[in-house]
């Protein structure tokens, strides 16, 4: 099971945190502090696994961003790497060659995508296309609602004028 997913920039800034196990807010910030220290300082050639408090952290660096995923000790670490890559590929497709700024300004989108890939700490969907399709369905629902709202508010504005 995945206990949490963290996205940390090279400078130690948090870009995304998703918790599937109960951690209090205090514990969360402690975990982030500890792990970012460990992960960022590891050399480039070293393996992508860190043993940490009886769990394992699988991480992978994409440009200036570290994608970290904490899994159980007996989970498949190599698969963990694949899940991270799966997520990154979907982000890439969704944003069209994703960069860190996309994830900063559209952080909520990054969360929505993650919610389509992982629920309850388990993988939900192995098809990238399905995830993209669901995301665009959601986005069009939002667009529709927005249009509706603006047309209604226009009408109200005209009436009350």
């Amino acid at each position, binding site marked *: 099971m995945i206990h949490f997913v963290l996205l940390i920039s090279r400078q130690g800034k948090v870009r995304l945190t998703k918790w599937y196990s109960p951690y209090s*807010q205090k514990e969360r910030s402690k975990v982030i502090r500890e792990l970012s220290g460990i992960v960022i300082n590891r050399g480039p050639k070293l393996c992508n696994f860190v043993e940490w408090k009886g769990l394992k952290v699988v991480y992978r660096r994409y440009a200036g961003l570290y994608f970290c995923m904490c899994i159980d000790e007996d989970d498949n*670490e190599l698969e963990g790497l694949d899940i991270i890559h799966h997520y990154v590929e979907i982000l890439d497709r969704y944003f069209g060659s994703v960069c860190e700024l996309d994830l900063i300004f559209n952080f909520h989108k990054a969360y929505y995508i993650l919610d389509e890939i992982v*629920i309850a700490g388990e993988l939900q969907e192995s098809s990238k296309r399905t995830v993209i399709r669901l995301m665009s369905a959601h986005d069009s629902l939002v667009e529709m609602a927005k249009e509706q709202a603006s047309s209604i508010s226009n009408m109200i504005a005209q009436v009350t004028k």
Partner: protein
Amino acid sequence: MNPFSSGTRLRDMIRAIRACKTAAEERAVVRKECAAIRAAINENDQDYRHRNLAKLMFIHMLGYPTHFGQMECLKLIASAGFPEKRIGYLGLMLLLDERQEVLMLVTNSLKQDLNHSNQYIVGLALCALGNICSAEMARDLAPEVERLLQFRDPNIRKKAALCSIRIVKKVPDLAENFINPAATLLREKHHGVLITGIQLCTDLCKVSPEALEYFRKKCTEGLVRTLKDVVNSPYAPEYDIAGITDPFLHIRLLKILRILGQGDADASDTMNDILAQVATKTESNKNAGNAILYECVETIMSIEDNGGLRVLAINILGRFLSNRDNNIRYVALNMLMKAITVDAQAVQRHRATILECVKDSDASIRKRALELVYLLVNESNVRPLTKDLIEYLEVSDQEFKGDLTAKICSIVEKFSPEKIWYIDQMLKVLTEAGNFVKDEVWHALIVVISNASDLHGYTVRALYRAFQTSAEQETLVRVAVWCIGEYGDMLVNNVGVLDIEDPIKTVTESNAVDVVEIAIKRHASDLTTKAMALIALVKLSSRFPSCSERIKDIIMHYKGSLVLELQQRSLEFNSIIEKHQNIRSTLVERMPVLDEATFSGRRAGSLPATVSTSNGASLNLPNGVAKHSAAPLVDLLDLSDDAPAPGSSGSDFLHDLLGVDLAPASTQPGISQAPKSGTDVLLDLLSIGTTNPVQSNSSALDILSPGQDNQKPIAALDVLSSPLASAQANSSVGASSMIDLLDGFAPSPLKHEDNGQVYPSIVAFESSNLRITFNFSKPPGNAQTTLIQATFKNLSSNAFTDFVFQAAVPKFLQLHLDPASRNTLPASDNGSVTQSLRVTNSQHGKKALVMRIRIAYKLNNKDMLEEGQINNFPQDL
């Protein structure tokens, strides 16, 4: 629009925050935004609620408190539109966790959304439920989720499956409701549903044996067929990763097959073929393929034995191990740990490679490899492996040395073929990484050295040499100082030279003293080392007459030490050297051989036990009979049980202990290398009580218990000082000898005299079931009254209930009994009951105390009554 609302868009706020150059600027921006959001919340502003929540989420990620936005999430979830709900649920998952009570308020909205006509809203609710639901919510909403497992859209079914996993983990009782719907999911074609369905079944198997049995019977074949289909499926671009169709599905199938096959020969048999196919056909040049192979190996190792498959699996691991990719090597080491229980021989074949991994630059790999090596060591390969590890110790990173040292020490201890090898290896470790060695390790080393009488000379010479090069290693210094103190004469006279030994340049007496002097004067030395050095010095003062003056000077240097312990010791040792020439040599005799069994027993107990041992000693030490309740281990001083001391079970052990002139000292190993020159000397010995921790029984404690940390030596030495000082006081000696000895410059023990004498405790009564110990004290300024602390100890294996202790005294005595601390007495050594008595002796000085006692209690609900008379009270009470 709300006039307080800043009205900035989310994008603008992020920009403003990113433009901040300092943390203070950022805080200011965030503060302003938060104030605006709070104002909007108070206004119940609806138009910008979702924007405000999005901002809050960003602020939350930066690490600022955002609890005030929690209720906003609930409001958004309760609103009708999809966009509001979407952001509301996201906020709920981000800002809250399952332990917050606010979460309960959302149950109702969740229930409505799970039944919503818009399937995307159902999906949002399932996602939130799956990620943060608590046990109560799981119970409330389980029926909804169960129904959604059969929803028409597969995207809802897969979400419902994962949601069920969370529910089943929170409330395992609900598992049985999910078994049937989960089994249905296994027949799906949609990969998402299949993956989540398999995962649900896997988790059901973990919480419910019935589920395991059910799936094993009904689904094993189907799952094997599914795996076959996936393995042999043609190229499918939608699921393809590195040329493999849906490795995630592969892995989950292999995982559930492992659980089904474990402990079931039939099921294992069904899956043999497909496992062999996966193991042989999977491409291993990409991560995805390796992930599948890794999972497959684990399944092969876990299911019921099939020799051929296991060979295949071990070969895959061998290939992994020689892979250049660190990730692959890491998982190989990980898996070999599991394989070692299955086929140790096969793992041994990779020993050399594994040993190389211990020296890897990657900490994760090193750690795995070290643990694996530790498992690989046996009697036959311990020598080369230890040699390699110790060689590596010299060059390893500082942060790895701790782990490595601990493992080497434990290997050496566990498998050492002979003592000389053990000592050699330990010396090497101490020389290389003495600062990383734990206390119990060097304690054990000293015990071994003490027991290896033919190696004393060899060891002390080796330590002397090692000290010359590695004086910065604290534990090496300690062991060296101890050995030189004990066996310094062997160092100087080259006694017991072994054939294999390098000839050593002659060491003079003053060279040996140099070592101790360096150790005691080194700034880095801690109290334990300094105290040990001081003791070594007093020992050497008698062994090396030529250096006696110099040693005296060094010792006297510490009379002004700020550390009370050292100061006191220094004064006492000095008086031994100056005034007690006649007994000095006997006082500082070599320590008796330390008892290995006692020590290992002591080690078996945890550290707290050691602590309590020294505490306990402070109460019971003079007598040596009463064991401290909290100390499960035999105290080193507590020799009454095993020492062949005459009458040790009797009343006053102290008298036995002191009656050395009656029994040859040699027959009482460990008690005291006491002088044989008669009682006068003996009294003198006692009068300096505190000094003889140096040798004899107490030094065992001194050496072994204090090193635990810097605090304890003080405690231990204190422990030694007070009871022994008190021992002299009542052994019908009177205070004069002590005053004589310390004339005037050690006021602290004298205080005991002023406060009333301290008496040894006695065993007042002992039967097969019960032992009663009395501790005495006198209230100051009232010689007639004696306070007795009675300690009752249950020697049987059953607890006593309704325990009542009664006592009667003759007319010239007055007795006052306080209530006992409780009236049940737990079985053997698990605790004791105490009770205070106050006796006033009107004939004080003429008649001794005497008492009759009666003890009533229930043992196994049977009434028991024991009676006795106590005549062995110390004199002059």
